[in-house]
């Protein structure tokens, strides 16, 4: 049981963060707060991938000449690091486009509150 908790508590924290982000996207009325919720959601997914790369007694994926590269258990898994490096960039890009769209919405309707926005869009 204690081994199960030690092996899985990192995932539980990530799931807590993910539900917080989902709650922000679903329940908040302000569009900027929805965007912040989406960013929390993305950060939790990135943290999940990074958490799954860990190996006990392993080091960062930069080859140390003293250790060598023959034994793969000496380095943590580098593949999710690469994928998440690009995912962070996509997160920046989506946030930028989302802010641009929010600015356009605000210029047209003069509000970012969702019920008011739905009223004015009729």
């Amino acid at each position, binding site marked *: 049981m204690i081994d199960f908790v030690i*092996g899985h508590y990192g995932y539980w924290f990530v*799931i807590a963060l993910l*539900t917080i982000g989902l709650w922000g996207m679903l*329940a908040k009325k302000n569009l900027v707060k929805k965007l912040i919720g989406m960013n929390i959601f993305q950060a939790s997914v990135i943290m999940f991938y990074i958490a799954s790369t860990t190996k*006990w007694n392993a080091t960062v994926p930069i*080859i140390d000449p003293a250790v060598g590269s023959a034994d793969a258990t000496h380095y943590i898994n*580098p593949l999710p690091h*690469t994928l998440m490096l690009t995912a962070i*960039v996509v997160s920046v890009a989506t946030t930028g486009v989302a*802010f641009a769209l929010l600015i356009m919405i605000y210029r047209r309707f003069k509000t970012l509150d969702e019920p008011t926005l739905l009223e004015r869009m009729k």
Partner: protein
Amino acid sequence: MRLFRLLTVLSFGALLLYAASGLPDRGDPDAPPHRVRSIAGSLGAAAYYIQHAQSDANTPNIVTVILADYRSYDTLGEATVIFTAGIICFLLLKRQKV
């Protein structure tokens, strides 16, 4: 309505907690993503990258080698995505000539 949203989020979290119990232990060196060969005998990608990055590209940083050499198509698409996002922001928010 608020209760419905709360139930949706909580049931989603409970489903994820149930699914997380099936994941391999964090830090286990023999977990399926980390192993050198799978049960069927095919090579594991991550272990292959660790063992061959230095000899293939003369670069100790394995993440850089994967980013720009093994998966460079992926990075090309990624750079295109951020470039497109910048251009879209520029075109959306450009001050219109009246």
